[in-house]
């Protein structure tokens, strides 16, 4: 099995465009979510500018996944507003949510491939589900999409269980981009990968987001990944976004919480205790 990915040169990073020029693609206001007694999100505000890649950082159990799943409509927030292209999603009808989801592509932490389906059907699932193409065309589209993530056509008929972790992530990535979404979500894209494979995935994400001209919202606690894929970074702590800025400002953010997290210090304003996760 070949794993020769298109690895873009890291030096061809685009010059940072003026952030003011970009329209807001996702606007989140006052988002609240609690699970039983545990308050996870407490009035979270966040704007994701169109065509940019925003990465939310934060410790384990701080609600990063809840944030992303709220936007996807998998978790229902208790209060607040999430607007995608101006359309309110909190409390929206199933039809509105489905319409919004057509703009989305999501890479799950464990890839979440359907293990009863071969790789090509996984990749083409969104196309087939929406009846955009027939099965023959879907297969061709799937193989073309697999090529974009560096997998050859011989991978198409394998089943997810036959793939390594890195290849599963690639297939998950292919599935996320197959329908050319406007917004891509990445949930801990490098978790469980060795550093080299993590870098390959990071490069792929950067390259694909740029090719598609998509807006990206990612969550991670892997700082190497943040520096590679982010245009902007937001730090989630205590159920709120406590800092947000361009990735270049990460090291001189002037925020003691961000500083502690970026440098991975056990001692600082962030208290690490034993908590239940929601």
């Amino acid at each position, binding site marked *: 099995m070949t794993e020769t990915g298109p690895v873009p040169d890291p030096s061809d990073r685009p010059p940072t465009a003026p952030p003011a020029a970009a329209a807001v693609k996702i606007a989140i206001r006052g988002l609240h979510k609690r699970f039983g007694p545990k308050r996870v999100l407490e009035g979270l505000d966040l704007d994701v500018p169109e065509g940019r890649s925003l990465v939310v950082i934060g410790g384990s159990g701080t609600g990063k996944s809840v944030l992303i*799943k709220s936007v*996807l*409509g*998998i978790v229902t927030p208790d209060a607040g507003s999430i607007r995608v292209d101006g359309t309110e999603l909190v409390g929206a009808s199933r039809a509105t949510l*489905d319409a919004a*989801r*057509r703009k*989305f*592509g*999501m890479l*799950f*932490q*464990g890839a*979440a*491939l*359907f*293990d*009863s389906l071969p790789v090509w059907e996984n990749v083409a*699932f*969104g196309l087939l*589900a*929406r009846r955009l193409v027939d099965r023959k065309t879907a297969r061709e589209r799937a193989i073309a999409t697999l090529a974009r993530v560096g997998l050859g056509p011989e991978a198409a008929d394998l089943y997810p269980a036959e793939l390594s972790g890195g290849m599963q992530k690639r297939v998950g990535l292919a*599935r996320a981009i197959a329908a050319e979404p406007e917004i891509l*979500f990445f949930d801990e894209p490098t978790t469980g990968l060795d550093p080299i494979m993590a870098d390959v995935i990071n490069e792929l994400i950067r390259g694909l987001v740029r090719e598609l001209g998509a807006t990206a919202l990612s969550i991670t606690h892997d700082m190497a990944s943040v520096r590679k894929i982010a245009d902007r970074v937001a730090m989630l702590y205590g159920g709120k976004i406590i800092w947000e800025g361009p990735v270049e400002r990460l090291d001189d953010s002037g925020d003691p919480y961000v500083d502690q997290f970026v440098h991975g210090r056990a001692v600082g304003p962030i208290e690490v205790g034993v908590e239940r996760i929601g």
Partner: protein
Amino acid sequence: MSFLAAIGRTTLALLSTIGAVVLFAAEALARGLSGRLYWRQIARQMLEMGYFSLPVVGLTAVFTGMVLALQSYTGFSRFEAQSAIPTIVVLSMTRELGPVLAGLMVAGRVGAAIAAELGTMRVTEQIDALTTLATDPFRYLVFPRLLAGTLMLPLLVVVADVIGVMGGWLVSVYKLGFGPIEYINRTFEFLETQDVVSGLVKAAVFGFLLTLMGCYHGYRSKGGAQGVGAATTRAVVSASILILIANYFVTELFFAR
């Protein structure tokens, strides 16, 4: 007081579970019947539940028919009523043992498999992934299983009825000295349409209940491998209990007529 509180808590938990199951079933039916049907999924589930359950159901039925013949001979020969054996075997199989035993066996085989599969899909975020790919998990996962269970269990029971009668025939002819043709004739002598139909209605109800339990517990499972294991156990236990309870009520429904 803590004793009373415990009773109260258990009752409330039971009621809330019943409510949740009913809502789950109503949602699955409403969404499944109103939108797109996934024929490929339905066909796959029908094959899995129907065809691949045949060996288990067949084996159960043949030995049950055989044992029925032996046991009723033991009882009925005491008052010279051996000639009733074919009737006893066929009525017991079609009205009662065919559907109940097939239901319990399939609950163990299929109900557990559904709970484990959906449970694993839940904890590995595959169900979330379906949602993000604009596919309703109720339409794609739950409804095809409910439909396949409701349709395939009656077919399995027809097979079980025939094989069970054959089991009784084998024992009666080769061990108890019945004439082979005479046994067959006596089998159909007192058999009425309603005997078979009531068994098939039971089968459809059991098929729905056991797939519902598999889907409900699998869909709602959480907490990794342990959660999936617990969901599987709950699916089989609750399906078995519901089958036995429903069995009484369907029997009474037909008895009254």
